[in-house]
């Protein structure tokens, strides 16, 4: 395998890694946000019940 081929493979790896890191990062942010929203919803529901 020539040095050009090896460089090619390195950049192919970087390309696929970048794409999947962006997607996995986005999913991670979605999960974090869902948890935060669910916590807030539960807190507010219990506040309404207490006030009633």
């Amino acid at each position, binding site marked *: 395998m020539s040095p050009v081929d090896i460089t090619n493979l390195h950049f*192919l790896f970087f390309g696929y890694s970048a794409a999947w890191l962006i997607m996995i990062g986005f999913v991670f942010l979605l999960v974090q946000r869902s948890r935060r929203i669910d916590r807030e919803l539960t807190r507010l529901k219990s506040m*309404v019940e207490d006030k*009633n």
Partner: protein
Amino acid sequence: MREKAIYVLGILGTALLVLNFYRIFLVIPIDALQGAIYRIIFIHVPAAITADAFYAVAVIASIAFLIRKNFAWDSLAVSAVEVGTMFTLVNLATGSIWGRVEWGIWWAWDARMTSQLMLFLLYLGYLLLRPAVTEPTQRATMSAILAIFAFADIPIVTMAIRLHNVRTQHPGPVLETGGLAPVYWPPFLTGIAVFLLLGSAMVLVRLHQESSRREIDSLRREIHAI
């Protein structure tokens, strides 16, 4: 029901992804001119097509909101824009890495790349604008107008490599001109299907978050009223 749909879309997308990785890395031959790096096309182009599909959904939802004033349409628009923007970032990142190998530079300020970057920035602006406007109807109306305005950039991106008098470093159109060899079509189309399935699952998660947010807003109003 929604949770089941998210799981089905996610599992189907992941299964197709594994099949596609097998095809991309073990079945199809290496490109004679570009070597292994050409395989980035199976992420780069499907990401752009998927992003444009979600932006189209966002525009339809935005128009529907402006006509009906129903916040469910606004929720769909923001969910689709968020997922579309993520796929645009994937497209820009993979394109830049491909350009570094093929052109020796990370970025060229040509018509295609600049207009695609503008598309990303316009929809990023949409997402940053929303939290700045607190009144829900005003926020949804402004967002809808911006989503429609930003969508006007997509024909510019598409035409940037088709007009003869526009300077571009980007490769010319290959899909409709027969430039893509028949052996590359299955992984290419599967790549689009994978992103559409996974992206739809993400949009459903975002829709659930948006409906929970609306519930939070109404509970807050209720607490203030008590």
